């Protein structure tokens, strides 16, 4: 006889460190549903704090957080920096353009160097899939993946889930993701945001559709529990949430679409297309947006429908929650001592 999996209800988690027994946050792929919910619940207090005039906590006072960004980023870096500072930590940014990476130092040597500086958490973004896990193996402190190649961007998926939850709450709806119809459209092939969101939303019970032209649709993506579409109109039919992705021109080798104009013709989210969705559908975009390509300004700025600025707000709260939870062991928070649950 097989026993049903024990999944704690929302708000009821295993005691102390067992609620989140991972050393770092490398992806959504390794997380249980209740662990995702735990992080979302933890973020609520920071949403509240961030809406106050004095947005400061001393939870991580004295800790050093290094944001090691080997790939350009503005918003994610800023979001992590603000999150760390609001928690009272000392935050240092290391940007690849200024680092010895350009001088030929290997990634492993850089990781060992960061480790020797006794950081308490390292946030990493890198252009190669798997690079963050490679560094995590070399350092003693928790590592947070802020995006690795085309692999994962877990905090983006968590902040998107938190954004959806808040939007549902404000409309007086159930906060359950079960049965929620989410359409993700755009450059799925090159998108780590899409992969993390698919895993996160599917884990929470949403019905996920992905839509892209054939050249931008990864092989066998159905195996990740999604329904695939090439026809944008059909993919939008009755959707509760539409997530638009940017064309990742910097990752494309060769031509994947004939022109931005033609892309908009088939896959641009216009006010007219939005009407195919459920009546009070919500629109999301991880940014930066290419207005007039994948999304029309009219839609991006539609108050009450567009959650795009809300996503940015929730991003800070989620990153605060992740930094707080992942440093609890080293800070000796009660119930989070080293011995209690310590998986990769």
């Amino acid at each position, binding site marked *: 006889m097989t026993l049903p999996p024990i999944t704690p209800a929302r708000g009821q988690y295993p005691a102390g460190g067992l609620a989140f027994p991972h050393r770092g946050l490398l992806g959504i792929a390794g997380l249980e549903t209740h662990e995702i919910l735990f992080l979302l619940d933890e973020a609520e207090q920071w949403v509240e704090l961030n809406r106050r005039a004095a947005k400061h906590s001393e939870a991580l006072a004295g800790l050093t957080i290094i944001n090691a960004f080997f790939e350009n980023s503005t918003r994610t870096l800023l979001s992590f920096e603000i999150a760390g500072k609001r928690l009272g930590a000392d935050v240092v940014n290391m940007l690849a353009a200024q680092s010895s990476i350009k001088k030929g130092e290997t990634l*492993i040597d850089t990781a060992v160097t960061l480790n020797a500086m006794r950081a308490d958490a390292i946030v990493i973004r890198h252009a190669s*899939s*798997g*690079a963050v896990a*490679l560094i995590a193996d070399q350092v003693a402190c928790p590592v947070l993946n802020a995006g*690795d*190649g085309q692999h994962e961007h877990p905090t983006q998926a968590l902040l998107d889930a938190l954004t959806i939850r808040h939007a549902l709450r404000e409309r007086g709806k159930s906060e359950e993701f079960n049965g929620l119809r989410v359409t993700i459209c755009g450059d799925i092939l090159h998108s*780590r945001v899409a*992969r993390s969101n698919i895993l996160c939303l599917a884990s929470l019970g949403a019905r996920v559709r992905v839509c892209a032209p054939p050249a931008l649709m990864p092989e066998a993506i159905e195996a990740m529990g999604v329904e695939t579409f090439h026809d944008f109109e059909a993919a939008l039919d009755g959707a509760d949430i539409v997530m638009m992705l940017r064309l990742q021109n910097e990752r494309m*080798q060769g031509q994947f679409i004939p022109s931005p104009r033609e892309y908009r013709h088939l896959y641009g989210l216009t006010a007219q297309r939005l009407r195919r969705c459920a009546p009070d559908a919500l629109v999301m975009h991880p940014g930066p947006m290419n207005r007039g390509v994948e999304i029309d300004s009219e839609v991006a700025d539609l108050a009450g429908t567009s959650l795009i600025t809300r996503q940015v707000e929730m991003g800070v709260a989620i990153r605060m929650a992740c930094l707080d939870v992942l440093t609890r062991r080293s800070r000796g928070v009660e119930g989070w001592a080293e011995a209690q649950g310590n998986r990769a």
Partner: protein
Amino acid sequence: MKQQRPLTITGGRLVLPGEVRAGALRCVEGRIVGLGAIDPEDGDEIVDAGGKLIAPGLVDFGVFAVDKPAFHFGGITRAALMPDQAPPLDHPARVQFLAYSGKPDFWVHPLAGATRGLEGRELAELALMRDAGARGIATGRGWIADSGIMLRLLRYAAMLDMVVVSHAEDAGLVGSAVATAGEMATRLGLPSAPAQAEAVAVARDIALAEMAGARLHFRQVTTQAALDLVRAAKRRGVAVTAGVTPAHYMLSDLAVAKFHTYARLSPPLRQEADRQAVIAAIADGTIDVIASGHDPRGPEDKRLPFADAEPGMAGAESLLAMVLSLVRDGVIDMARAFALAAGNPAQLLGVPAGRLETGLEADLVLVDPDKPWVISSTRMAASAGNTPFDGQPVQGRATALYKGGVAIG
């Protein structure tokens, strides 16, 4: 090193073409002179094989480094060296140097680079390289994209009676891919190419070789679709042969999970159905050669993010055990195992070795086919331990090795 004294190995099981038979083997002045129910003569050095296999030393077709300790550990006495060296093997002097680089106890048979710099644009000096010791021509790890150049190459090689070793991956489809398109590559976010990139390349090369009347060997054929093309071409009588390395019949792309760079190979690991197709092709004779593809790579090439790591595995030490696993699984018999790993590659190279036959070179390996051991990337004879089989228990090991009748080690 010349064999000074005649040698008779008694009490073994001789792995002959087509059968395994109890008996002895005698060699004089580096050549096999007697096989079967023979007795040592006066003055012979006598070695008792103790019931072990007496087999031809393996001929490893298509390696990337001359790594003698690893080859000797693996029972390999000769190897065909790929032209992908730094600098590439596209000049007679380098061919000549490498042809002597392993002697006396290991023979390297260089494969001449088909084009200058292996860039696929201008033919290299193939006849000069042949006369400097090249035993075949190889396109290297890249594909010659220009079909006109490939046809001219095949015609020229046919005239020189040299086999052309082709790398079968359509460069346009592959681009910068490091994995086979499918669920694993999608989940990991790795740049991937469809497995059909191999069949596209194989189809073109077969068509051109048929036109040119050239001998064509695909160093690795790893997919069902491409194997079907090879099978059909053989049936038509085209002079085409195919090889594979153990990775492609032992592992599928599941091995790249967790971005394991030791499993970053060229061509990349395939899906399970293709792995099964490779085993079927070994069983039915479509595949002629099993080789190690030996390419030892240190941490500077492998401890990198998956897509940034160099392809290749150190395979020489595990080749014999991996071939014997096919015998244990009933895919092939013992005689065919050594045809795949010694006889057929020697024939492709046109060297008088690879079989137990009077008159041929006494390149011999004594094998305990059941001896258990564990492959460990940290304890290898190779110059680097990049094996995707790390930690795997295997059976079968070379217990003694002779090159030209002289014991090694």
